[in-house]
């Protein structure tokens, strides 16, 4: 083979660079399409729903009259359900993740568990709804309550929390673990003082991604029976709610019937009166805002925690 001339090498390099540029352009185009779609969607919702986005929209219950209708029971319901979901999914998921990474022996049982967890993340949400209807609503007798909904969504996001916990732990260099044990720390002490704090930013990201998925879920919540018309809020602890003046207990609210944002939106889009579409757009925008602010909090916390890690 003849050695290449300088000319030929130049052509070769130019061709390579050309491909590089093309790929870069393609990447930018793809990114732009994605962003454009989101901006159009949010912009469209905002434009259509702007008329309804006022204080009353947040402080009024749903009504048959579109312009008097608000999302009070929906946003309160969503926040309470998310709270229960987080309370159940985070401790369970993080503990399971730590166990699998730090304690579990490498054998076929662990392998099967691992494969199953990954597969569970891909199970359609309606299936969790059916499962929860049988277990939480009927067998445990929780009824169609905030508790049932919160636990259902917790099941749904559990695999996400576990997987992200494990990935966060894996990204910690082995020398940290070895160093800790070398000075005589037990496995628990290593976890408690090193692994968990260092993995926290990653865990938090997983939790927020999970909650962001859960907040928009409609199918499993409809399955367990969230309500479409509900013009009262769950009882506030230690205040009288009924006509008899009996105070509500600390945990009475978890057994209360409820509705959530996604169901309210779904209901509004399927009404005969087109005026409700404005409400649906406004509520959709609020839901987007809730997801985005959750993400913002996560990013901020992650930033704060990363700053505190000193290896």
């Amino acid at each position, binding site marked *: 083979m003849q050695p290449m001339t300088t000319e030929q090498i130049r052509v070769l390099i130019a061709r390579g660079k050309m491909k590089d540029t093309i790929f870069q352009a393609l990447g930018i185009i793809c990114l732009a399409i994605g962003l454009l779609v989101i901006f159009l969607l949010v912009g469209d919702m905002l434009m259509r729903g702007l008329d309804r986005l006022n204080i009353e929209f947040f402080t009024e219950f749903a*009504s*048959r009259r579109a312009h008097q209708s608000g999302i009070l029971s929906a946003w309160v319901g969503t926040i309470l359900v998310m709270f229960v979901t987080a309370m159940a999914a985070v401790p369970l998921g993080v503990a399971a993740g730590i166990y699998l990474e730090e304690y579990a022996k490498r054998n076929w049982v662990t392998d099967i568990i691992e494969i199953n967890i990954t597969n569970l993340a891909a199970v359609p949400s309606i299936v969790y709804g059916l499962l929860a209807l049988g277990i939480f609503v009927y*067998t*445990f*007798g*929780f*009824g169609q*309550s905030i*508790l049932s909904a919160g636990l259902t969504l917790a099941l749904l996001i559990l695999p996400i929390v576990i997987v992200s916990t494990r990935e966060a732990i894996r990204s910690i260099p082995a020398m940290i673990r070895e160093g800790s044990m070398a000075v005589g720390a037990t496995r628990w002490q290593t976890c408690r003082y090193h692994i968990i704090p260092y993995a926290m930013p990653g865990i938090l990201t997983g939790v927020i991604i999970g909650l962001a998925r859960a907040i928009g879920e409609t199918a499993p919540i409809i399955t367990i*029976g*969230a*309500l*479409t*018309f*509900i*013009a*009262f809020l769950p*009882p506030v602890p230690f205040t009288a*709610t*009924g*006509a*008899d003046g*009996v105070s*509500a*207990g600390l*945990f*009475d609210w*978890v*057994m*209360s*019937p409820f509705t959530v944002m996604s169901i309210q939106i779904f*209901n509004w*889009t*399927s*009404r*005969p*009166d*087109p005026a409700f579409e404005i409400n649906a757009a406004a509520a959709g925008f609020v839901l987007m805002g809730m997801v985005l602010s959750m993400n913002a909090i996560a990013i901020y916390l992650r930033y704060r925690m990363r700053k505190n890690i000193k290896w």
Partner: protein
Amino acid sequence: MFKQSKLVSALAVAGVALFGAQAAHAQIVKIDGSSTVYPITEAVAEDFQKAKKNAIKVTVGISGTGGGFKKFCRDETDLQNASRPITAKEMADCKAAGVDYIEMPVAYDALTVVINPKNTFLKQATVEELKKLWEPAAQGVVMKWNQVNPAWPDAPVKLFGAGADSGTFEYFTEAIVGKAKSSRGDYTASEDDNVLVQGVSRDVNGIGYFGYAYYAENMARLKGLPIVNPKTGKAVEPSGANVENGTYVPLSRPIFVYVKAKSMQKPEVREFVEFYMKNADKLIREVKYVPLPKAAYEGNIKHAKDGKIGTVFGGKNEVGITVEEIMKREAKM
């Protein structure tokens, strides 16, 4: 197995003990069922809560008539919204669970066949013509307007209709094809009537059917097709007046609320039902349904007081039944 069930019941007990069984003092009227009846019951619930200054709470869900009856017959709800009478199977379920109920017709719904406003050739349709278009044998065969009626143009038909789980689908097929749930399958089906509204309003060859309220709210972009009354031979427009005077047949139907007899003992449910019947006329007009004659609402309250439980339909749906006929049968119960 034994161990497991013990564990489950222990957990259940712990759950109830921890959170307290459904706050015992809360007075909640629980309602579920049909999406067709929902707008009416929702309007009543809203005004009732305002009138009672929120001392009594009302919840209304949408599980569909069938899904709602499942809950109703499991003794989970106080009232059941139904766009058709209770079926024989549901009667058996309720009986097995010891749930007695009072049947109350609350309004008329007129199933409306709609076409695109730009459609100029279609002035009216007979039940036979609609049957030719919608019967199962038409599937893949009747694709053009002139196959139904030679006077109509040689243009494709675009069909839109209710999904197979809805009471609307059941009633339309029974009234038009002659057998419930018997329909061609090659049409755009949706449980969400707004999808059908948009479909027909965007296609000049579109034809579809759904509840009157959706037509009433979208008259600007849809045309209601007059249906020939099989008895008089005259085409009758879908309208509140024509439903009330009984000429819009066979597509007008009564819709119902079933009240659990045991719940009627509870003052909050009794008050709600009385409020419902007293304000039905005004509220039903507001949500674009057709109210029954006043005597029907008074009759409902009276039947509840007299404890007339059960259904007058015997587990079967009937096409073209009038509310007068229902009242007559109830009187004999």
